[in-house]
């Protein structure tokens, strides 16, 4: 059972957390020209790498805050914990972020301009 350092509460047992799966999947806004195939990459495709994986976790039985976590899926080493909305800072985390196929995906491109207010 992992020990996870919640950015708000500190070190806690893994059982207090829930894993929200892959991080940095940008949500394409709906009024775009994405094909079904490109959209399905956002909706269905999830990575399951051997090695460094960037994940979202939530301290469900604690502060209920979400955060990002870079974890080695072989050694289970937690490389880095960083806030939502940010990208990794460590060399390993950065590499995993930049090398990810999503950076070039149409779905990610279609997430911009994000944060648009709907009136």
């Amino acid at each position, binding site marked *: 059972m992992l020990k996870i350092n919640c950015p708000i509460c500190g070190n806690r047992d893994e059982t207090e957390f829930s894993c929200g799966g892959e991080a940095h999947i940008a949500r394409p806004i709906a009024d775009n020209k994405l094909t079904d195939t490109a*959209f399905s990459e956002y909706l269905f495709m999830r990575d399951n790498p051997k090695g460094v994986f960037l994940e979202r976790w939530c301290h469900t039985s604690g502060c209920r805050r979400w955060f990002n976590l870079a974890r080695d899926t072989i050694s289970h080493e937690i490389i880095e914990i960083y806030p939502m909305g940010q990208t990794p800072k460590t060399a390993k985390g950065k590499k995993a972020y930049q090398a990810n196929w999503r950076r070039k995906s149409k779905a990610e491109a279609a997430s911009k301009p994000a944060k648009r207010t709907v009136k």
Partner: protein
Amino acid sequence: MSPKQSHRLRANSTAINRQKPVQFTFDGKQYTGFEGDTLASALLAHGVHLVGRSFKYHRPRGILGCGSEEPNALIRVRHPSNAEPNLRATQLEIYDGLVAESQNRFPSLNIDFLSINSMFARFFPAGFYYKTFMWPASLWMFYERFIRQAAGLGKVSKNHHDPDRYEHKYAHCDLLVAGGGASGLQAALVAANAGARVIIADEQSELGGWLLTDNNFNIDQKPAMDWASTVIKKLHSMPNVTCLVRTTIAASMDDNFILMAERVTEHLSIKEAHLPKQRLWKLRAAKVILATGAIERPLIFSGNDLPGVMLSSAARSYIFRYDVLAGTRAIIFTNNDDAYYTALAIHQAGGFVRCIVDLRDNPKSQIITTMRKLGIDVRTGHAVIAAHGTRHIASVDIAEYDTENGGPTSDAVHMDCNFLAMSGGLNPVVHLHSQRKGRLVWDERTSCYRPENKSDDWVSIGSANGTFQLGRALAQATRITSSLVTKLAKENRRIIVQEPVAIPETDENKQNWAPLPVWLVQSGQPYISNKTAFVDFQNDATAADIKLAVREGYHSVEHVKRYTTTGMATDQGKTSNINAIGILANTLNKSIAQTGTTTFRPPYTPTSLGAIAGRNIGSLFDPIRTTRMHSWHHANGATFEHVGQWMRAWYYPREGENFQQTINREVHATRHYAGLLDASTLGKIDVKGPDSAEFLNRVYTNNFATLPIGKSRYGLMLKEDGMVFDDGVTTRLAEDHFYMTTTSGGAAGVLAWLEELLQTEWQDLNVYLTSVTEQWSVASLSGPNAKTILKACMSEDKNSADDFPFMTMKETFIAGIPARIFRISFTGEMAFEINVPARYGLALWSHLMRVGKEFNLTAYGTEAMHVLRAEKGFIIVGQETDGTVTPYDLDMHWIVSKKKPDFIGKRALERTSMDEPHRKQLVGLLTEDPNKVIPEGAHAVLDPDQEIPMAMLGHVSSSYYSPNLKRSIAMALLKGGLNRKGQNVYIPMLDGQKPIKAKIVDPVFFDKQGDRLRG
């Protein structure tokens, strides 16, 4: 009168207390042992070896080992009200009144009808079950009964109630030492002296490990066990040390999370009431030292499973720890030096060592010379090629043996005996290391897999690390622990690095620990085959099975393990794995390192489910939530149903009413007069913040930005895949303040999902969510008399009830209680959902019922609510939807905004597959026979006479008898259903009855215009 302890020695061991005789029974026969005895040692003291029958062939089996490695001696213990199967006799300590019995025999241990299986051994080869499953399925149905009767380890208790209490304990420490042998004791001492909080745990009843089974050498100039006793006493006296015995470390997990099962009272005659039977420790250790020792390997030869054949180390344990000489005419069969010490022990205990058979050609050690000088027949370069006997070993065949080519090179000599101690070398206990994904390396010198120590957080030392020589092990324990302490001291001020700690000196001088690996002793005689050369005693897997598996194409060690089931029994191959790998490697002509090993997984030994459950059983298993009106429901005879964790009033039967009559009465009363439902369980979320309207606009399919203050709107929430996730009514309380309701079961999930969106996707939105489900009690008042009753209950401005349009909210007082009243309806009648601060719930409810009495107000439960809403065709999320249903499938196009540029699920609804004409769509069903109610979940077909398997059209999601329509009604999700209205479908019945014929109709059965609802 119990029989004599014929095999008990005069010596005085410390483990047993001769002043305290203990009475117990085994298979109905009374025996006497001593306090401290295990069932195995007490039985052996009476010369009883035969304790069980084997799994597949029902061969007689005796006690092989002396601890948790025991594969054979699995027994069942009877308690007054239940029984426990598969306990190891070698670990079970006896107590007064213990009732133990053997397993897997019919009708008795001595005469077992199923032992005939061994005559048919060729029909039970490797992969027996796989092969059986390949026979025609109909035959399997026939055989299954017999196989199930014959197979299986032990029988569980018929009484499902476990009267014992189990506890969980959470703990932290700086260092956990797993194992209390010489290395473990030294490690604990070094760390404890530095001030570290140390836990040392051992699965045996006392600390000491292998030192308990040897008396031939000294540590620090005193007998080894005296040294150990001094250390143990010291550790016990230190406040920073916890010594645990009878504590099995079951699992070693990430970041040094350790599960330990402590047997607290099982061994006691008088069990104190405040103590649990077992305690499951959940431990987080900064560092872990694995000093788990080693387990001896059996030698694999024909008949090696006969009672009276024992591991050499076990035989020595019984002599030194329990004063029991397990056999009086002994053969020692070995490939290393250690077994000579067993021979010496037997000799010194007064036994007759008939012959020492050593596979090695010309071994040279002091001990061998010593044994020869004692006049003992030592035959090197020989092997026991077969053991004979019926229910006990009676004789062996010994021959000169060629270990290079694998076979005897002389005629066999027949020798009688009543005992055989065998030693095939040692296997370090690497399980806890392996559980952490630690790698194993094959050590050619000592012929064993030892752990590759790579982690800073957990390290193996001593025999567990393949360091078998005591002097080296003690040095290693000192050195490694000191370095861990240095690391710990950097983070922890409590821990202070000491002067270099002295390494205890020892004269232990076993010159040759390294065994000569001979994985399988070939008899070379056609009439003695490998089929009785057992590798895995517990699963009855033989050398022949492994060879067969290879012939049938299984070459990977993992495949062979599963195909032959070697190492898959409750002992997880503690004695068998390495031998199996050795035989496999030889058969494949590979090295052991090339062949590889299987992975050990937790738990180390079987852990009882009771310990895992702890106190989380019965009413503590899952919390139950009740509403503030619960006591009224209870007093008024309600039957309850579980909705999520809630207990909801299901229906309120009156004297002499059956289920249907109650529902009919409640439904009828609500439609014709008035009904009151406890709706407190509805999920309620307070949404506040300047961006609340924008947020709701993004999570609901319809428009909430335009909702005026004081108005309510029904909303449908989708997940990103376009499928319906939840529904409910949301009301705008202020410009920046909304009150959202969700389904009762979905409340927690909706809150979590909305929080996730706010925290991860839309961090720019300024919105705060608060769960207020338990802050409000809700009574839902509906029916033609609802308004009259409401008026009568209102404390002020009663006339405002007349000006109360559908889908609006008023804040007022009911019976003096501040209330938010919502004019919304789930019954199709004029209805008011009265929300009051939770603590007034019962007062509100009682007042409404009192005032409503003259207007025929009837309390109704969730079942009547279901019927009332189904009459109106209102869906229930989770009943009409199952995560594959879109709003379009529900014929709810009207609720999906075409104008909003985005909302969760919008893009997914535009996928081409969403237009697929054969999607399941929501329709109503009217049965041809109005009294026939279709079972919910039943499947509909177009043609009931088609061949099986039939083409399914869809399934019935809701089905009730409607007392208002005086007929059955149903809702169904049918392929292309929206275009099938008017067609007939058939619902085939499981019980052989005629298929039910029904017509596809619109799902709104009652008041299609909604006049009653709007009033």
